[in-house]
């Protein structure tokens, strides 16, 4: 008698098909072992938005009554495995429907596993994840994150590799052979079973002790509750902003302080304040109004509200003035303008390093993965680099 739940934490829309494939295949494979299960996306994440963290669940039980009992709950309160398909989610997730930031390992049970696709070293991921007071395991499937979109799926074997690794870290959910049989039924590509087996053999597993990780308290807010809500559902508006950092010059908007959106970000803009021509375009075209206007007419991106869309990089007419850099290299949301004002030489040196990081990423494989760019591009990328983790 047992019920086992796993969750996939993913980037909304970009990894929706990937997560659905993983959870559906878990349930289909469970049937082969005489078990029963269900796979579903979290209700509160719908309507899903590009990049905003979302969840898919798979629940497997020995018999239908047990499964029904579990489904009476809105969603699982604890999971044996938290599958993380983008490693920048390890910093915590602020999903669509919740106030505040949730640690990535919040639902992971004692002795359970956080399974991440990543090319980062283990210690960097542990540093990102919030501390837990019970021990758990961190498993890494080596590979870059797989992003696509709503209509065109990037079939780079990420789904089957995760299933193979899952059989290793959670054998009581579904065993490897059941996955391999199900994968063979779903696709003519014989290499997929091979990819699953290889991930089973290669996935790393290491313990994370209580107290290890990011000690910060994730931000949270008081939910008003229905007794405190205004008549006719009146939501307090935002105040109009004022001068930059409370001063006379420039402008800084007041922002929604209960939904910050930064955990949506997989890259952030870094700005060269010395080559900036003050053309205004990054500020004017930013859908999230995240640029503060400094008294000297420069634009400082507020890292609590930037969701990393990259429009600012695209509209900026000056080469390397706005550069999108992988979020994994940053540790906080501090102001770049403050840094530059405090220590110009230090900032410019840091900026050069960041630009090198961004450029080297573009050169690896066929560029950074942030959704669909052109017909046939995914096939070309897979031909160039092989399927994920192929070496």
């Amino acid at each position, binding site marked *: 008698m047992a019920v086992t739940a796993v969750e996939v934490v993913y980037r909304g*829309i970009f990894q929706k098909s990937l997560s659905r494939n993983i959870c559906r295949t878990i349930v289909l494979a469970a049937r082969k072992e005489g078990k029963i299960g269900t796979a579903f996306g979290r209700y509160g994440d*719908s*309507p*899903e*938005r*590009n*990049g905003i963290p979302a969840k898919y669940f798979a629940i497997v039980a020995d018999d239908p009554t047990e499964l029904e009992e579990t489904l009476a709950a809105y969603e699982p309160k604890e999971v044996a495995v938290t599958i993380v398909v983008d490693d920048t989610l390890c910093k915590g997730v602020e999903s*669509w*429907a919740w*106030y505040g930031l949730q640690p990535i390992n919040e639902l992971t049970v004692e002795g359970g596993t956080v399974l991440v696709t990543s090319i980062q070293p283990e210690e960097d991921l542990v540093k990102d994840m919030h501390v837990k007071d019970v021990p758990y395991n961190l498993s890494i499937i080596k590979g870059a994150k797989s992003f*696509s*979109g*709503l*209509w*065109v799926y990037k079939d780079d074997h990420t789904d089957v590799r995760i299933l193979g690794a899952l059989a290793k870290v959670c054998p009581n959910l579904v065993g490897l052979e059941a996955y391999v049989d199900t994968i063979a039924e779903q696709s003519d590509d014989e290499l997929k079973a091979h990819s699953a087996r290889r991930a089973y053999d290669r996935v790393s597993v290491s313990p994370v002790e209580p107290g290890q990780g990011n000690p910060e308290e994730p931000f949270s807010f008081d*939910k*008003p509750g229905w007794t405190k*809500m205004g008549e006719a559902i009146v*939501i*307090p*508006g*935002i*105040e*109009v*902003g004022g001068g930059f950092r409370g001063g006379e010059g420039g*402008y800084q*908007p*007041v*922002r*929604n*302080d*209960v*939904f*910050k*959106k930064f955990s949506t970000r997989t890259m952030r803009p870094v700005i060269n304040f010395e080559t900036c021509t003050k053309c*205004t*375009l990054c500020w*004017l*075209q*930013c*859908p*999230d*109004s*995240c640029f503060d206007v400094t008294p000297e007419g420069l634009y400082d991106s*507020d890292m609590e*509200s930037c*969701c*990393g*869309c*990259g*429009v600012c*990089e*695209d*509209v900026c007419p000056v080469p390397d003035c706005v550069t999108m850099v992988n979020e994994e290299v940053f540790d906080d949301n501090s102001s770049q303008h403050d840094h530059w004002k405090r220590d110009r030489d230090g900032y410019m040196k840091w900026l050069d390093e960041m630009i090198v990081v961004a450029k080297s990423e573009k050169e690896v494989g066929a560029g950074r993965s*942030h*959704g*669909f*760019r*052109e*017909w046939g591009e995914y096939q070309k990328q897979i031909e160039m680099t092989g399927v994920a983790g192929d070496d």
Partner: protein
Amino acid sequence: MTLTSTLPMIRGVHNSPLEEYFTSGHRTCQGCESALVMKLMVKASGPRTIVLGSTGCMYVANTTYYSTPWVVPWMHTQLGSAGSAAVGTAAGLKALMNKNKIKDEPINIISFCGDGGGADMGLSAISAALTHMAYNHLILMYDNESYANTDIQVSGSSPWGANSTFSPPGKLHRIMNQRWKKNMAPMLAVGHPGVKYIATACASYAVDFMNKIRKGLKYSGPAFIHSYDPCPKGWDYDPMYSHELGMLAVEAGIWVQYEIEEGKLVLNGPSRMIAQGRRQRKPVVEFLKRQGRFAHFVDEDVDYYQSRIDEMWEKWWLPGVIPLFNEAGEPKG
């Protein structure tokens, strides 16, 4: 008579107002062009503005879970009632001003709807609102070419052939959305000759966009703006290209930028240069190939799409605006 606003035209990006009245912290997609439309709309209209919003992405993403990015007053209205809400609010303010209950001053009323709420469900209410000349308001339809909020179903504004939840391409039938996009702005202009301002717009051209909002608010009576909004979720592209795709649609002649001011039609920006023969249209494939929603297209589909755009520019009575021909199938003008 309620007064209309007298906001000056914005001359160049450096003269854009600094203040934001739609700020950060909305639950939209990365690179959401419609969120930019909201931001520029109220940046242009200023603090003395009331915004009314029909159900759609810009309602759900901006006011759920007891928080909001709106600085100006905002009210939700039902999916098909952008027009009714605009007239009702304008009439209410007018009555309060007539009774000296509030100061008689220009208050901008902007009612927005998506293409589902505007081109489909709300069309009759918008049409009715555009016949009430005594009430000042602006209706803005932000068109992301699908019911985007509920995960991309076909609307009357979806383009021919695009993939969607309701039109997935299959092995037997590749093109499932056989309908051509509705031509909203001219339909409303021709049918409602009393309206003093009707325009098409795209937030990729921010200053032009903000000035169109200001013009719409300047004229007494109702006004209508149809905004073309690239949607990274439904069109399936890297969110950083929202701005570029808006421009590309204009440069390929797929989206035509114009305003009809007191009955006079003027094409703007690249659309004007294309009409005057001073600029070549880019091939539509440049636009199509960058979106996953058209990834199932074969050459034949691209050629058909191109031929419809060519016809619009070469054969219509008014290029991009009025698709009338004489009996011989020749253009009238």
